Each structure stands twice: as structure tokens, then as C-alpha cells.
């Protein structure tokens, strides 16, 4: 039986032994193609007969509205933003992720704690502190990190309709204009993600490759993971 582990303290009254599903994380910075990978992976897994659920940043029932409102005015302190995202994550963790894992679903997560930690550090949070804040979360079964250089993101961002205020880190302006700030901010976020990748052992993927190649790779790895743990379970339950 595979081991479900928390990064630290665990949350009140959580019994990890009944979590039979899988926690699969797609990480990467803004505009790198995570959503496409998640969507295709979902279709692939459902074809194989797995029940799939997904979640992503600021999609919580509790805090998504509040975060949206706070972003409109940019009137929330930056550390408070970090904690607001932590609240959003915790709500999704307890009310979306854990129930799905209890029901044996494959939970696909479009950015987990790592992006939140990276963005927090770039906005001035202490790296040890913010990791401690998220220490209630569970270690995923796999983390795929779509890696790209900030400069390589630019054409994708332009194609998508231009630079976004928050994706350019304009709340902590890092340059004269959106473009300059975007490059510097994204470089810093990517730098932090690279560090986290080393610390937590991500499966790093060159995101400049063709999207079909990327999704094929991820789908193959995830299918192998699910099949091996299902096989292990079958042999364990045999007399």
C-alpha cells in the first residue's frame, strides 16, 4: 500500500489511511500551458476508466470572491495576499482534494503549494515561514513542472492578449512598464520554482517542446503510476 504523507503537522482530525486516490500536480508559471496538459490528461485518464477531478488556484468556494475583489482594488497587504491564497488553498484542500482522494479519484491539480510558495517568496515572504504555513498539505504522488524561460513566455502572452497586471508582478513593480516588470517578475518566480524543484524532486519538463509531446509524456508517466499502484494493491489483497 502506498504511503500518504503530509509535509508537516497534518490537519486536525485527518486520517490519511482512507485516502485511496491519487494526487497529481502540474506546476509551472503563468502562460506555460498547464491548462492544456490538465485537460488532455483528464480525457486520457477517463478513457482508461479512472474517475478524475481537478482544481486550481483561487477556485475555492470560500475565498475566490474575496481574492477577486481584493485584486480589483489592489488594497490588500502583500503578506495578507499570501495568507488569503493559503486560505483559498486550505478550503480547496479540505473540501475538494481530500474528498476526491477519499473516493479514489485521480485529483489533477493545476498549481499546488509550490507556485504559491514561489510567488510568496518573490513578494517578500520568508521562505521557511511560507513552507511552514503550507505544512498541512499532502505530498503529491507526482509533480510535473513545465519549465520555460521568461523570455520564451512573451510570444505566448502576446498571443493570449497581452500582459496581465498580476502576472507581471505590478503590485510589487519590478520595472518601468508591464513588459519589463513581467520579465523580471517571471524570472524571479521561475528561479524560485527551480529551487523548489530541486528541494521537492519535481519531474521537470522542457515546456518549449511541442504540446503533444509534453502531454504524451505526462499521460504515459501518470498511467504507469496508476497501474503500478493498482497492481500492487491487487497483489496485496490476494490471499
Amino acid at each position, binding site marked *: 500500500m502506498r504511503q500518504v504523507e503530509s509535509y*508537516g*503537522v*497534518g*490537519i*486536525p*482530525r485527518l486520517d490519511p489511511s482512507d485516502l485511496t486516490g491519487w494526487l497529481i500536480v502540474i506546476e509551472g508559471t503563468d502562460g506555460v500551458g498547464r491548462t492544456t496538459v490538465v485537460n488532455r490528461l483528464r480525457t486520457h485518464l477517463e478513457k482508461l476508466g479512472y474517475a478524475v477531478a481537478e482544481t486550481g488556484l483561487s477556485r475555492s*468556494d*470560500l*475565498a475566490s*470572491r*474575496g481574492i477577486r*475583489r*481584493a485584486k480589483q*482594488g489592489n*488594497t*490588500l*497587504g*502583500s*503578506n*495578507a495576499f*499570501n*495568507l*488569503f491564497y*493559503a*486560505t483559498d488553498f*486550505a*478550503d480547496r484542500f*479540505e*473540501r475538494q482534494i481530500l474528498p476526491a482522494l477519499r473516493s479514489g479519484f485521480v485529483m489533477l491539480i493545476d498549481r499546488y503549494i509550490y507556485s504559491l510558495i514561489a510567488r510568496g517568496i518573490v513578494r517578500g515572504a*520568508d521562505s*521557511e*515561514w511560507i513552507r*511552514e*504555513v503550507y*505544512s*498541512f498539505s499532502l505530498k503529491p504522488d507526482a509533480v510535473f513542472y513545465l519549465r520555460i524561460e521568461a523570455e520564451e513566455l512573451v510570444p505566448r502572452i502576446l498571443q493570449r492578449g497581452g500582459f496581465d497586471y498580476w502576472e507581471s508582478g505590478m503590485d510589487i513593480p519590478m520595472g518601468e512598464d508591464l513588459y519589463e516588470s513581467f520579465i523580471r517578475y517571471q524570472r524571479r518566480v521561475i528561479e524560485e520554482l527551480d529551487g523548489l524543484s530541486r528541494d521537492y524532486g519535481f519531474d521537470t519538463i522542457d515546456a518549449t517542446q511541442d504540446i503533444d509531446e509534453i502531454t504524451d509524456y505526462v499521460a504515459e508517466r501518470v498511467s504507469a503510476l496508476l497501474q503500478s499502484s493498482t497492481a500492487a494493491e491487487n497483489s496485496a489483497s490476494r490471499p
Partner: protein
Amino acid sequence: MTPGSYGSIHASYPGRLFVVEGIDGSGKSTQLTLLAQWLRGEGYPVVFSEWNSSPIVRATTSRGKRKAMLTPLTFSLIHATDFSDRVEREIVPSLKAGAIVLADRYVYTAFARDVVRGVDARWVRALYRFAPVPTMAFYFRTPLEVALRRILSGRPKLKYYEAGMDIGLSADLQESYRLFQAKILAEYDELVSEFGLTVMDATRKVEMQQKILRRAIQPHLDSLGTSVTNRMPARESAAPAPSAPPAAAPRPASSASPATAPLGRRAAGDAS
């Protein structure tokens, strides 16, 4: 003090931060209001900061409470979010400007409530690491029955989370409230020694408590004027900013609180 935990970071600001803590019905807010009136009358710049009052975050907290969707974890995090916003935008800037910040409930409220709800004590102390350590924190110690009488006689409509209904102590609202408050009270008693809170006997007469409170903070005010001018950046001391009011100048001790020998931190109240 655990490294990486609340209290491990010491920043020095020209202002002063006084905190009142205690269970509902301990009379702490009354005392803080009286203190604010006195301080303002004495010409000090006073800033009030109340628990759970960030204009942006409060809407989410209310939503979570109204729909009973908060768990111990999200209850803890949303209150930390609110607090963090007030620290960044209210408390720290005011302390930098040399003001007296009065906080009605502080991190100790979270330490008591969240731990009673089952949140890890070490984790919640780390969560609040960014909080400035107060100049003095007063704990208004009240026997449970006294506090319950004050609350239950005046305000019979208890709210779900206020009564700790979320942790299933009792199906009866009033009974749950009693049990929950008793647990919080026990947790506060632990915090007194852990963080050196100044204990106030909240069963004494209001005016007597106020006298003790004023006397306890007086020594911290006597040094306020000089420290503000000393610590201000040079350009600001040359031309005082509007946020550094004239009250920052050295002043004689007020008649309401005759200068006395400085009181020890724990000697202000006589409850223990």
C-alpha cells in the same frame, strides 16, 4: 522561544503597542475604550485595531461563518489573513509613525481559539511569526461564570462559531458556548506564562481596573516622546510629518496617572 515562531523576530518601532485579551464578557473592550479616551485626552496619537476588521478580508470571513463552511484550518487562516492585512496597513505604519496602537484581541486570541479547535499549537505560533510583539499585553482574567452571566444575560442570540458549535461539544447552543469558553479560558491560562501576559483581575470595579491599567502603561509613555524624535529619520525630524503629531513631544506626567515607581510586568493586576 522556538525559532521561526511568533516572538522570534524583534523589530523596534518608535510607537507603542498595547493589547487586551480575554474571553467574551471579560470587560476588556470597555477597558481599552477608556484607555483610548484618556490617551487621546492627554494628546497622544492613538490608533485602534480590532480583531477581524480588515475591510477586504472581513467579507470572506462573514461568508464562511454565515454558510458554516469554515473548518478549524480555514478559520485559523482567514483570521491570520485579516490580522496580516491590519499589521501591514494599520499596525506597523502607525508604530513607525510613533503612535500608540491599541489592539482589541491579538495573536493570543488565535492561539487560544485555534488550538481549542484542534489546530496544531506549534503551527499556529509559526503562522503568526510576522506579528510585532506588543509593548504590553493585558489578559483580563474572569471566572467563567462571571463572563457567562455578562454575555448570556445581555445577548442571548449566540452565533454558531462563537459558541464553538463547529467542534461538536454539544448540540445545545448555550451549553456548547459554556464548554467552548471554558476550554478557551484554560488555554489562555497557559498563554499567560508562555508569553508573559500581564494579568488583570477583571472582577474588580471598572474604574479600579482602569487605574491599574493606566499606571501599568505610564512608564512606557514617559519615554515615548524622546524616543520618537530620536528614532525618526533625519529628514522627518527636521520637518515633522503630519503623522508625527505634537503629542510626541516630551510631556509631564498626567494628573490622572501620577508617576509612580515602574510596575513589574506581572504586578499590574493582582488576580494571581
